[in-house]
């Protein structure tokens, strides 16, 4: 099945949950990433129970703290 992860196509063999997708898609710092699935936020508590399906659009949003000093 094909997913779009952060704007890029990703092909996986079978449906996996978001926790595993974070590993497969090589998310940086998976403990602190915000996940948006088809335009809705998924809470970290739902990462294990939420499975992706063909055509899903997933965004990993990262903390970015720099700016001043």
């Amino acid at each position, binding site marked *: 099945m094909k997913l779009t992860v*952060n*704007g890029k196509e990703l092909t996986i063999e079978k449906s996996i949950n978001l926790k595993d997708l974070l590993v497969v898609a090589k998310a940086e*710092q998976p*403990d*602190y990433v*915000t996940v*948006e699935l088809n*335009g*809705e*936020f998924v*809470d970290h508590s739902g990462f294990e129970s939420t499975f992706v399906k063909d055509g899903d659009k997933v*965004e990993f*949003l*990262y*903390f*970015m*703290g*720099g*700016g*001043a*000093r």
Partner: protein
Amino acid sequence: MSSLTNEQIERYSRHIILDKVGGKGQEKLLGGKVLVIGTGGLGAPAAMYLAAAGVGTIGLVDFDVVDLSNLQRQIIHQTKDVGKAKVQSGQETIAAMNSDVEVHTYNEMVTSKNIRDIIRDQDYDFIIDGTDNFPAKFLINDACVFEKKPFSHAGIIRFQGQLMTYVPGKGPCYRCVFPTMPPKDAVPTCRQAGVLGVMGGVIGTLQATEALKYILGIGDLLTGYLLTYDALTMTFRKIKIPRNPNCGICSDHPTITELIDYEQPACDLRHH
């Protein structure tokens, strides 16, 4: 009748000729009030472009002094300013650029005790978050939600940057996307990870653009969107972000009802 002087008509002629700005828009900018929190990588270019554009009142907040290592990206400060308070250095630069601009300086760190008073001091129209740490970013978000003020969030690190614009009642706040502070030292800062100097110029200038658009009432703001920028691949992505129905502060049933002073990351306290 326009209240612009002949000198102002000449100075701002490239604005005035724009259909969406005109003399009326320039008057709005001259009457506009923007608070820039942090006069570093993001705040320096943001404040300079706002000053050049003729935003009549600019507030600068920073508790730091200019360090030699700042000059690689914080273009509002110069070599002669090393050791000087950043807000003073910034005020002097703006004064030399454009005498139409009144600068208010706040030589202090924003905290739960002072931030709402600073925002109210000149009843600022728009706030720019140019800070480098998460306690300040969450504090600015929460204060702007409480004070019902729009603000531009941004962050830069290494070769990447991001920004979004909060407008009260119109879209998500920072906490909708990032509900809680990352643990201390979990996410690297520029001091730890480095940053290409121009990143502040690109992202800080986009923050200034949002402030100008907001004051002018033109175009579409980055409300409900997170814009990300990767300089290495030269990729901008505009990611639609929803309001979070469970947001701790801007939802219909908030759990956060007062400002919080989170612990500063140890790396940021090292020099102070």
